[in-house]
């Protein structure tokens, strides 16, 4: 059995799954306690047999398994992530330390209010801080992620529209939008009308005017948009939407470009969400948990999810009595552990530090843009904010695509940028360095990109067959979808090891 053969030191050696390790009877858990048989307490037809094939490992075995898996991951603390639209900034350690305090980690959401006053105060303050940064009047912290924030925001809009007598039918979404925008619109019962951006990379008032009518509930706009370009017409666009009693929703995924520079609330935005796991530095965790607080203008307050955190005479309270509320979108009070990290981040930076954060995000992005401009085709010449978009137009002629460039970057020790997004730019390469990177790192990243541009000319095969130095080579994704193996099964394992 392969479980007993020594693994090769080559890091491309096969790696065992949890289920292929260990030995029957082994355990990492000890809690000696004599117990009555469960059959004496629960009818046996409601009980199960033992869990078939469940792991049986020792403690060191468990740790070593996961530690070795961790070595196969790329991460911020190891390397630089130029991922556009993802804001992969440093996740401060102090935030991790403070959420592990017992008074933060071990508190029950349904405990009597006197036992959670510190937590409620934190949430109350955080709502106000985020409202201030974004120029909004009220904030709910309940949504568990950006996409849930979008859904919540659209539900607020729908509730408002319904209260005016007609929920309306459509949401306008620019062609540069994140995929979640149209998906959230559908989930909220709306049809999506796509609005094209112009060839300079932004949305024009005239284009919005052409599609804006009384069936449109809202325009969903990302600012800066996913090209990293500030929507310069935003105020007049908002006027056009408002003139027909529509509302403006802003996807705040790119808020890292705007802190202290421009407030969405002053651009005519009525509802927005922000991603705490982007702008406010909470860790991405390999795909969550995040948090997607939603901010609104005063006239939407009554529709916000319940419970609302309120300050009463005897302390902070959870207000449930809001009859116009859309209800709950999540259990309890949202992803508190994430909210607490963001709170610590804002405390540490303060208003001035948040502003400096956005300024340095812009400086880093513009620096990269300038350095790469001679070697890659820049999608738009408009000034960029916190990220910039290149394409593979120059390399395509040599038979080298964005995918090849991305994979070759892995060989240079860099995570690829966001690729093939936004969808409206062919072969997009979207780079967002964030403010926490040094100019030295930006230099070595751009040096690698420049070297790849040269390789594309001189040795295209090298680029097209990359990566060459990762734990696995290019994976058969089509095969994965065709054969669809979504779990380990003992019988499959016996077959392959046969």
């Amino acid at each position: 059995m392969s479980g007993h053969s020594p693994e090769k030191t080559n890091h491309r050696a096969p790696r065992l799954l949890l289920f292929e390790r260990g030995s029957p009877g082994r355990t990492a858990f000890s809690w000696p306690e004599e117990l009555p048989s469960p059959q004496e307490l629960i009818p046996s037809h409601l009980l199960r047999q033992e869990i078939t094939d469940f792991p049986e490992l020792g403690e060191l075995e468990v740790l070593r398994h996961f530690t070795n898996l961790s070595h196969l991951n790329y991460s911020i603390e190891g390397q630089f992530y130029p991922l556009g639209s993802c804001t992969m900034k440093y996740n401060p350690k102090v935030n991790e330390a403070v959420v592990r305090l017992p008074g933060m980690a071990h508190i029950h959401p349904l405990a009597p209010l006197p036992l959670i006053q510190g937590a409620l105060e934190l949430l109350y303050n955080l709502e106000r801080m985020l409202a201030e940064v974004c120029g909004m009047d009220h904030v709910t912290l309940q949504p568990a992620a950006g996409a849930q924030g979008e859904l919540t925001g659209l539900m607020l809009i729908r509730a408002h529209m319904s209260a005016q007598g007609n929920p309306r039918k459509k949401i306008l979404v620019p062609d540069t939008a994140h995929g979640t925008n149209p998906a959230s619109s559908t989930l909220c019962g709306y049809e999506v009308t796509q609005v094209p951006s112009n060839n300079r990379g932004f949305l024009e008032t005239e284009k919005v005017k052409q599609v804006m009518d009384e069936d449109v509930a809202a325009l969903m706009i990302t600012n800066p948009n996913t090209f990293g370009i500030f929507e310069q017409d935003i105020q007049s666009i908002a006027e056009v939407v408002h003139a027909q009693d529509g509302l403006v929703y802003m996807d705040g995924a790119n808020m890292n470009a705007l802190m202290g520079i421009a407030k969405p609330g002053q651009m005519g935005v009525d509802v927005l969400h922000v991603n705490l796991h982007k702008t406010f530095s909470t860790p991405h965790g390999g795909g969550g948990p995040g948090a997607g607080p939603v901010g609104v203008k005063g006239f939407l307050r009554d529709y916000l999810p319940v419970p609302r955190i309120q300050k009463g005479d005897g302390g902070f309270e959870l207000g449930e009595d809001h009859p116009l509320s859309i209800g709950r979108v999540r259990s309890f009070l949202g992803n508190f552990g994430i909210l607490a990290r963001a709170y610590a981040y804002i405390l540490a930076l303060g208003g001035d530090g948040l502003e400096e954060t956005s300024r340095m995000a812009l400086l880093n992005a513009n620096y990269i843009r300038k350095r790469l401009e001679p070697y890659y085709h820049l999608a738009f010449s408009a000034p960029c904010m916190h990220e910039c978009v290149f394409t593979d137009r120059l390399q395509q002629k040599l038979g080298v695509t964005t995918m090849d460039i991305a994979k070759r970057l892995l060989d240079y020790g860099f995570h690829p940028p966001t690729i093939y997004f936004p969808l409206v730019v062919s072969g997009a390469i979207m780079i967002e360095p964030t403010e926490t990177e040094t100019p030295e790192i930006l230099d070595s990243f751009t040096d690698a990109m420049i070297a790849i541009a040269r390789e594309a000319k001189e040795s295209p095969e090298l680029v097209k067959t990359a990566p060459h130095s990762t734990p696995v080579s290019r994976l058969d994704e089509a095969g994965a979808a065709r054969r669809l193996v979504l779990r380990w099964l003992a019988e499959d394992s016996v077959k392959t090891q046969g």
Partner: protein
Amino acid sequence: MGYTPHTGSDKNRMLQAIGVDGVESLYGHIPQSLRERAGIGLPPGISERAVKKEMGVLAARNGTPEDCSLFLGGGIYHHFIPSTVDAIISRAEFATSYTPYQPEVSQGTLQATFEYQTLMCQLTGMEVCNAGLYDGASAVAEAVLMARRIQKRRHRVLLSRSLHPQYRAVVATYLRNMEGIEIVEVPWDKSGQSDAEFVANTMDDKTLCIVTGYPNFFGVIEDLAPMRDACNAHGALLITVTTEALSLALLKPPGEWGADIAVGEGQSLGLPMSLGGPGFGFFTCRKQFVRTMPGRLVGETVDHEGQRGFVLTLATREQHIRREKATSNICTTQSLCTLAATVFMASMGKSGMRHIAEINVARAHEARERLLREAGLTPVFDGPFFNEFVLEVKDLEPMLGRLESSRVVPGLALKQWYPELAQCLLVCVTEMNEREEIDQLVRTFTGKN
């Protein structure tokens, strides 16, 4: 304090390279009217030490199991977490990595997620599990939406009234804007289980699914056979919802009962209570429905050299490809939380999972027995239960008022959700409630404090 590394000379060098004279020039194109009003009215930044102090002050104003006796469940549970869990999820390679879109440099997250999917299939007895959803409540909402995709022509949803009230609220919010869906509440019987007769009489060919807690909000273990029979008779789907995932180490798993979709909250599996989040929603179903599932899936494949590897798969269901036609708008998996659960289950192992579940059952039953016998409290339901149970307490409200300053929380008053259970308390006892605490709980009711 700040997290930007730029020195004055760094900035100058970069500005020079860009060809502008100041950082402000980089956003000079933003309308002046916006720029001049963008100042952030928050206090200036503070030191790391000051952050720790301020967070410590807030934390000290919350009650924890270290200084309180909590008998609280209701969807969030205080369980033992082996030290291995935080050791692994604190590793920056997991905590600070991105969604694994680039599989060559994400095999750690991808393999761990594949293992998570497998473990949850084993625990629930189901065929497939996705990579994770936000929480138990939205997982139920997504399950109902999925059932609707499968049963397009049906419009009625039977929802047990004994399902977690907040979960029912989230389902209502998600369904509000879907045209024509009707929710029918299923009452409970004297055992505390969903009323089988009501289910048999109410289920019809317009019913797309029935949704039940397992165990339900009252801690009662549902007998799912009558619901399965009713579903079979009318072609409806059976959806189970488990808020206390640890119970599945001991109870007959949803898959063996014939559930079509089994979802729930995973917080019990290695995550601290953290005021109710983050945890994760687990989502499992029959393999035949996999293409209508919400959320991400990790699949096994091979690389160019034939070596086993893992990738995100069936992405054509998802928002970043399908946009408005996607099966859901979700694009997170609560990955670090499902990793915690994976390490938890691997550490507990086959015998540990069952043992800890058995401790819960034993302690909860002993506590209930003593509260009935020694404190004279009245049982409300006579059905089998896992680690939570409902008791009727005379003059409950004044008593809870008296206890507010005592740091004993004997349970959860049900009145806020169930007016008909106004005098009732939902008591939860886990392995973390020591014998002395149970003694204290009993004394609270006997007045011998």
